[in-house]
């Protein structure tokens, strides 16, 4: 069967990459409508849950640019989430001063500041990381993430050290949960559209080529290191934007936002939803957030739970939820087309 032609490194069916749009567009369209209606249909508690899902979903989707599309795993992606959060929080603190009040212009300047700061951070860190692939890439991103964590953790004068920065109260009209939710909704939707465009561009297909076989991609005359760096910066920038939204949402930032546990959240969400699909991380964010809320309701052993879930996914369903849906869809389509072919030729099924 032509469909089972496998790329040499990933072992995934070659047709897999085209399944992205077929599944991601309907899923994201449904989610768009659902998220649009959340504040109208549900109460404030669920609006806050949905805000969290959107922000962390954007963070996870930016991580998937590196993991799902480029085929490298970063254990330090939260460094950029945290950089963005701190850039916003520090400007916020300076603007609001002693009164604790911040104007609308200053608020949006603080949020926007996260973008260049995270991009610059990703450029510097990425410059070193993209020289490596595989486990070396994973180790170096982890090392840089922890390094930034320690810098933020111990630089009391500037970052507030382990106390973090509190009292990040948005301007009056954005203080209500629903107002802030719709602000996040607009920003996340725009960011996701931009990211979708990037993954569907020739640039996005070069990323996939590098994932499947970096050496062959290089032989095509593509400067793989430069493409990896550009993608690393793009992913870091979107993570920073997600981080910027996080501070005013929780009214505080803490060094933990840069740590490996926070990086782990992006990894887990992506894996739960399915790294092979653009919509995967956002779906994963929904699953993760609900699972977390449900499990922590009756036990404090959340790491044990998520660890077991990850173990089960890696062992039995490495494609995540969307991967499983896609396999089911494919199996059904395969059965149908085989049936159609049999009827057309009138031949007997010859078996696998």
């Amino acid at each position: 069967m032509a469909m089972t032609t496998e790329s040499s490194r990933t072992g995934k069916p070659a047709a897999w990459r085209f399944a992205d749009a077929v599944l991601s567009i309907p899923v994201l369209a449904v989610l768009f409508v659902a998220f649009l209606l959340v504040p109208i249909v549900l109460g404030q508690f669920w609006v806050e849950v949905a805000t969290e899902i959107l922000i962390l979903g954007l963070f996870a989707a930016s991580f998937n640019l590196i993991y799902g599309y480029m085929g490298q795993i970063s254990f330090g992606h939260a460094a950029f989430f945290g950089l963005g959060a701190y850039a916003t929080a520090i400007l916020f603190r300076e603007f609001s001063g002693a009164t604790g009040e911040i104007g609308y212009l200053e608020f949006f300047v603080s949020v926007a500041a996260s973008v260049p700061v995270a991009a610059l951070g990703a450029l510097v860190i990425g410059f070193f990381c993209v020289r490596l692939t595989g486990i070396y890439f994973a180790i170096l991103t982890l090392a840089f993430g922890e390094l930034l964590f320690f810098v933020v953790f111990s630089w009391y004068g500037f970052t507030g050290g382990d106390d973090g920065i509190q009292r990040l109260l948005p301007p009056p009209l954005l203080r209500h949960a629903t107002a802030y939710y719709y602000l996040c909704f607009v920003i996340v939707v725009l960011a996701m559209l931009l990211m979708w465009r990037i993954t569907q561009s020739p640039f996005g297909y070069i990323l996939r080529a590098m994932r499947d076989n970096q050496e062959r991609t290089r032989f095509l005359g593509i400067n793989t290191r430069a493409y990896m760096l550009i993608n690393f910066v793009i992913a870091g920038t979107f993570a920073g934007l997600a981080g910027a939204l996080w501070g005013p949402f929780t009214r505080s930032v803490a060094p933990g936002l840069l740590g490996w546990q926070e990086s782990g959240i992006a990894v887990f969400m992506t894996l739960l939803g399915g790294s092979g699909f653009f919509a995967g991380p956002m779906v994963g964010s929904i699953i993760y957030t609900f699972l977390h809320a449900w499990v922590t309701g009756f036990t404090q052993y959340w790491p044990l739970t998520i660890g077991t879930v990850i173990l089960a996914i890696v062992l039995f369903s490495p494609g995540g939820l969307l991967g499983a849906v896609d396999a089911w869809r494919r199996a059904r389509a395969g059965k149908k087309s085989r049936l159609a072919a049999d009827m057309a030729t009138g031949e007997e099924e010859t078996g696998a």
Partner: protein
Amino acid sequence: MSLDLSLILIQLLAGISRAMVLFLLASGLSLIFGVMNILNFAHATMWLLGGYITFSLFEMMGGEGPLLLVVAIIGGTTVMAGIGLLTERFLIRRMYDRELPEQLLLTFALVLIIGDVIKIIWGVEDRAVYLNIEPLAVGETYINPYYFVIIAVGASVAAGLWWFLQKTRYGKIVRAAVYNRDMVSALGIRIPFIYMGVFALGVAIAAFAAGVFLPLMPMALGVDIDLIVQCFAVVVIGGFGSILGTFVASLVVGIIYAFSILLWPDGALAVVFLIVVGILIWRPWGLFGTELRY
């Protein structure tokens, strides 16, 4: 803070003994990676589990005297070797044909699971063993003689491991498996057994290290992450698969860490990471690794 001679001596001893635990962990990590191509994120977490098990065995036997500690260490090491065998047989073995990120995620999941299991069984308090040892007077300060025990033990394990890999039949099989597992398999050697053995050996060495360090270094939740990051630093600096490189890099990282804690407490890890970054750019295969294996 004055940098007099005795202070330097103490920091040097602390650095070298820290280097020993790094070496014992990193050599297992490097061996497992060299033979099976699996990077075990959970290696330091298994070290931690070994430490807690040894602690409990020691307490159960009365909790006094160096001799009982030796018995407890042997017990803890054996238990962890068994856990290592089971982990390879039922989890790691399923991952050999998988993509690298999935392999990493599996061992990363083990970090979370084992960490919480430790929390369930032993709670959140630190666990340490107290041995009544007379401190040694050196100049104006006192030195814990246990440092010398640790350095001696670490050096012996390093020598033993080197001897095992270079001189024994099984060591040669393991080294051959690093270079060409198909050929080893074709010679009639059962590769799955070799893999299981190597994984268990690595975990056992880690558990042994935890036990030996119990009187000096309390077992606490979360230290496994600090340690695994430093072990990664060691294997990157020394080069994967090189015992000598791992040994030298452990000394470098351990001693630099000990001295930077003295001069710039918050920057100790930063200094280590700067070296890692430098090495990765200059010689990504490490000081003693070969370009081929990188």
